[in-house]
């Protein structure tokens, strides 16, 4: 607009903020208005580039932005008011932080001169969010807004990604006060320069170790998804004939239908993945962080393994498990370098040892193999996930909440593509699933988006059914309704003699009527034979939100399950079997 004119356009702080978002390529902002952000909302109203999605609770705005980021790789943007608007966003910010999701959260703040006075809707959002953000900043001068927006996106999206909070006092956005607007092209910070490439010497050492390995395992995590390195990972794994296991956050980075895939690892990992890890001589960890839900007891972790660890965050290396060959770098360029070196490398794989190793893994595969009891009278949650996989041809975006249903989805929906499995792995946030599905559906309206949830989790953000109506978000909700907080109940069964302390949902709503009340379609499934026609009907209703309330076996547990305090390969395999 200013191309003929060398003078930069004069804009108010609020207009600069929105223009900066547009210049950053932001299409949607998720939020909720309030006193401190009224100037910003007015600026939003007067343009059409950046669209606003009005949620019903700020937590949902953060999860929508978060899920958009998980599906697209670009930072999601949230706009909330000061005080309760900002504090309602806290759970969503922490969720993004724990899973290293790029997000920019813009919070209103009371007028600068009121800060510290306990003014109406004042809260120290910089202080509250400090432990759960990659960085946070406050606007002190309106003319700094374009620079600070650029800085926020740069920090959120580079290195190990994460949420950035930008706190904006109301007087920074006054419509009558205008300043020359120019959006910086790039930004350099002397104090922040994430090392991207990885040390070639270390990479060579890693490759030599992998080529000599007799019992290797590739263990990859969310870093491969965030780093968009799925292709490189897959190519390298195939060239080196490596068994591949993914963390909960890493599912889809390697195709689950590939014979080299041995399943998820960790607490509810597959028998073969956990056995392979425990017995490995070389563990090749890529963009994973040896989290406690993976390692089980760290003292007993993989006793004979040489550990190669690629991660962009040096603090993730040797934090819980010592890495013998650390490589600090973004996974994509590091894996590319490995592939290049492999081209030139004269080293040979020990095919005989690898053959034996694969034979051993095959035997482990047969021990459990993801089996569960098929019961003709009761619907099994695992069977529901398998049916959803069939009906969506394994190509849906699947979001989940937290609990048994999350684990069943992770185990039985075989993800062949990255960015398709969207769940709160680190923080374990109930209430994540529905808004997450909404965030994905908004950006990928033609894609099938399924929210796998439970009757406990779904009620933590059920108000968003209203937002779905407003924006026509035809997500499919698979409510695995067992009348219990299933994972809590499972632990109570296993450790507390089935004393169900507060894990029983006593007065559940009629979810079908509830969905209808919000203007959607509700279908109840109580018998096994009703499942197929219900799914048929639900997925045929393309543009409709369909709430499938599926009554599943309330006694089901998630297996395998690592035995607490044990090694990786110590597991319960069913209610009656253990290793």
């Amino acid at each position, binding site marked *: 607009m200013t191309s003929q004119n060398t003078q930069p356009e004069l804009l108010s702080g609020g207009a600069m903020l929105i223009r900066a978002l547009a210049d950053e390529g932001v299409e949607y902002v998720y939020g909720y208005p309030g006193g401190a952000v009224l100037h910003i909302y007015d600026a939003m109203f007067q343009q059409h580039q950046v669209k606003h999605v009005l949620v019903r609770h700020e937590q949902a705005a953060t999860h929508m932005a978060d899920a958009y980021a998980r599906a697209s790789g670009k930072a999601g943007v949230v706009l909330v008011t000061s005080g309760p608007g900002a504090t309602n966003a806290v759970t969503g910010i922490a969720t993004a932080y724990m899973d290293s999701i790029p997000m920019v959260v813009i919070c209103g703040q009371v007028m600068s001169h009121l800060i510290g006075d306990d003014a109406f809707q004042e809260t120290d959002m910089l202080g509250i969010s*400090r*432990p759960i953000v990659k960085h*946070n900043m*406050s606007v002190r001068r309106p003319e700094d807004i374009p620079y600070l927006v650029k800085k926020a996106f740069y920090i959120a999206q580079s290195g190990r990604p994460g949420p950035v909070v930008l706190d904006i006092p109301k007087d920074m956005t006054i419509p009558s006060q205008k300043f020359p607007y120019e959006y910086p092209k790039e930004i350099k910070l002397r104090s922040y320069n994430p090392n991207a490439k990885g040390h070639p010497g270390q990479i060579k050492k890693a490759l030599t170790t992998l080529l000599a390995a007799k019992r290797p395992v590739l263990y990859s995590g969310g870093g491969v998804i965030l780093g968009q390195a799925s292709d490189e990972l897959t190519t390298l794994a195939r060239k080196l004939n490596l068994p591949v296991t993914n963390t909960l956050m890493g599912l889809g980075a390697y195709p689950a239908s590939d014979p080299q895939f041995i399943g998820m690892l960790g607490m509810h990992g597959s028998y073969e993945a956990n056995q392979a890890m425990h017995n490995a001589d070389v563990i090749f960890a890529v963009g994973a962080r040896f989290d406690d839900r993976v390692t089980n007891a760290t003292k007993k972790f993989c006793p004979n393994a040489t550990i190669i660890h690629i991660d962009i*965050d*040096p*603090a993730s290396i*040797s*934090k819980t498990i010592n890495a013998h060959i650390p490589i600090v770098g973004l996974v994509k360029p590091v894996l590319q370098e490995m592939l290049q070196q492999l081209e030139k490398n004269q080293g040979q794989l020990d095919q005989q040892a690898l053959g034996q190793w694969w034979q051993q893994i095959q035997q482990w595969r047969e021990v459990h193999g993801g089996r569960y009891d098929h019961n003709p009278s009761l619907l099994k949650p695992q069977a529901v996930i398998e049916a959803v996989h069939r009906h969506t041809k394994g190509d849906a975006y699947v979001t989940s909440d937290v609990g048994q249903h999350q684990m069943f989805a992770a185990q039985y929906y075989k993800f062949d593509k990255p960015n398709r499995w969207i769940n709160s792995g680190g923080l374990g946030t109930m209430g994540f699933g529905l808004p997450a599905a909404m965030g994905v559906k908004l950006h990928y309206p033609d894609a099938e988006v399924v929210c796998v949830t439970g009757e406990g989790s779904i009620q933590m953000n059920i108000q968003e059914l209203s937002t779905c109506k407003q924006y026509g978000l035809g997500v499919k909700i698979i409510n695995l309704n067992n009348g219990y907080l299933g994972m809590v109940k499972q632990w109570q069964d296993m450790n507390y003699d089935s004393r169900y302390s507060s894990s029983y949902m006593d007065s559940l709503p009629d979810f079908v009527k509830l969905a209808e009340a919000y203007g959607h379609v509700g279908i109840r499934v109580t018998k096994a034979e009703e499942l197929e026609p219900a799914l048929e009907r639900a997925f045929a209703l393309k543009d409709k939100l369909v709430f499938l309330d599926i009554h599943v076996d309330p006694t089901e547990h998630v297996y395998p399950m690592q035995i607490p305090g044990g090694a990786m390969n110590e597991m319960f395999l069913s209610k009656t079997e253990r290793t």
Partner: protein
Amino acid sequence: MRHILSVLLENESGALARVVGLFAQRGYNIDSLTVAATEDPTISRLTLVTRGDDQVIEQITKQLHKLIEVVKLADLSESAHIERELMMVKVKTTAEQREEVKRCADIFRGQIIDITANTYTIQVVGTSEKLEAFIEALSGTQILETVRSGVSGISRGERTLSL
């Protein structure tokens, strides 16, 4: 093991809170912490004394590095370095004690920087151990007040921590 970490930090509001918050959140110890601007007013230098085994210290330095405002840092205790702490002690001095306290301060190269009819205020500079030894040496005297600056440190020789 005791370590002295020197940190160059962007001199911005909230930066110090981030450093201190990190130690609280992750359960690391802080024995002492000093901070002030350097010859470059945009940079603060922070000296932090902490304890932990090698793994903990490695995590502390990595986590500090992750903070966006941390520009550079060094573990001074990894090589030859000089550390100093300043202490001011106000003691009650009766007429017959005054000579003894003065002599004690002299031995520790302390200076009496304020006097009243009943008190001496003594300034001592040195390592933390020396300051503790001085307090020990004053055991026959009634200490009214002690204030210590916390440790500041710098490496010996030509090694520097600068931009």
